[in-house]
């Protein structure tokens, strides 16, 4: 569905590539996690996978970059918008401000897609429920708490029902239950609607529990790729500044196994 082949990208006026010869192939219906230290290139990769690189950011690219077999550079953001959704890292700037209430704010994207009213209403109600903010629907999207604002930002993109959903640290302001619920909801979308979800996160436990595949970045390069357990339990994560779950850390001190547990279930099994 999305393919990068030896893809490099330089932000305008920089010497160091932000992405350095990254090769990656993403199939429909995959749930993919991206990990990496701050500055490793997670956000840039998110922009590339959603087409904002090269369409919004200028700068140099090298290598291949295709979406459904078409060269990404030949498509435009307007066409991509209905198919690929991007949730940004910082919730504070994602509110369009073009509308008054949370409900209307979520509608903004749907209006741009030209959906009929009845369809919009159904989608908005569904999105509000998915991120659990039904009770905020008639409030102003500006006078809410940090976590509530992040939920609004996510709901606004979810309602657009893109085939590919890219999320850049979407749970940074969410409470623990909210984070788990968000992952559960995304997982459900992947299995029922066969959408593709790509998610950059520091919260390793939830990546480990829900993702099909994890990609580790370091200094703009792809450093590891594979099943969550294989990637996240390795010592390399410590060197990359990603860290490991406390399940892995505890088990590392207690067990001699080839592959350390990374989730609660795995840890429970290993330590029983």
């Amino acid at each position, binding site marked *: 569905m999305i393919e990068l082949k030896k893809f490099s990208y330089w932000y305008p006026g920089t010497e160091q590539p932000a992405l350095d010869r990254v090769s990656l192939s993403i199939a429909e219906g995959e749930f993919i996690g991206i990990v990496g230290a701050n500055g490793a290139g997670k956000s840039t990769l998110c922009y590339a996978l959603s087409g904002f690189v090269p369409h919004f950011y200028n700068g140099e690219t090298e290598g291949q970059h295709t979406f459904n077999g078409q060269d990404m550079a030949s498509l435009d953001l307007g066409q991509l*918008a209905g198919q690929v959704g991007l949730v940004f890292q910082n919730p504070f700037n994602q*509110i*369009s*401000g073009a509308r008054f209430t949370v409900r209307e704010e979520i509608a903004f994207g749907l209006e*741009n897609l030209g959906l009929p009213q009845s369809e919009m209403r159904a989608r908005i109600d569904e999105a509000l429920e998915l991120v659990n903010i039904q009770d905020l629907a008639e409030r102003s999207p*500006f*006078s809410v708490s940090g976590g509530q604002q992040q939920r609004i930002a996510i709901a606004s993109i979810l309602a657009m029902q893109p085939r590919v959903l890219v999320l850049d640290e979407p749970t940074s302001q969410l409470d623990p239950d909210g984070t788990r619920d968000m992952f559960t909801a995304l997982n459900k979308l992947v299995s029922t609607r066969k959408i593709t979800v790509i998610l950059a996160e520091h919260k390793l436990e939830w990546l480990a529990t829900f993702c099909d595949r994890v990609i580790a970045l370091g200094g703009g390069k792809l450093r590891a790729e594979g099943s969550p357990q294989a990637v996240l339990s390795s010592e390399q994560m410590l060197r990359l500044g990603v860290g490991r779950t406390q399940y892995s850390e505890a088990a590392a001190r207690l067990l001699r196994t080839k592959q350390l547990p990374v989730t609660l279930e795995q840890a429970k099994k290993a330590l029983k």
Partner: protein
Amino acid sequence: MRGGSIYIERSSGLHWLHPLTKVALTALCFASAAALPGLPWLLALFVGLLLPLAIWGRLTGAFLKACLLVVGPFVLSLTIIQGFFSGGETVLFKLGRFAFTQEGLLAGLTFAARLLVALGGTLLLMQSTPQPHLMQALTERGFPPRIAYVVLTAIQIFPSFQDRAQVIMDAQQARGLELQSGLLNRARLLLPMVGPLILGSVMDVSERAMALEARAFSSPARKTSLNTLADSLLQRAVRWLLALAAAALLLWRLWSALQ
């Protein structure tokens, strides 16, 4: 509250009117401001039309206050300037070499009244219409959405600047900046305020532009709207009448000027 606006929420008939009806009304106000011949006419329009509308919209206090705030300074400066410098026979009083004349006073007041009528109409429109609904009404009539968004955020920028300014002011105080009255202190405040305000908005612009794209803003699809703006045959008729009246006024003015 961030992202607030001049709009004042009330449940009233004026609020409920279709935005374009109010736009037509505002157009009439502008035409009147330009075309009506003298002070009595202008004041009559204000007292006879705008004020009753404000009362109908349950906005009387807010409307008068805003008029005073916006037009007040003009009234003052215009009357002073015109009073002293536009000449005339009837001297009211003298300040050194300068004479303040009745004709000048009248000219100044008339000019201010023109402003009052034009701005009053605009204020009434803004206070009784959520700006997004106004933009929706315009885009539904073929106004380009991109321009609508820019206009919209420009209108909202003042209040959102204010909100943002508040947030930043909070932060500076939390870092020991004393917010006392006194001109010098206020001036000292300016830099730490303006810095993040401008920086913030520049940063915001690129991030916001991106966030807009993510919301399919440049999608080729024909845009739709969540809410249908209530309209009626009567309102359509009234709109046409208002527009005609405005055009007639302007034409009449042009014709009498040419005479």
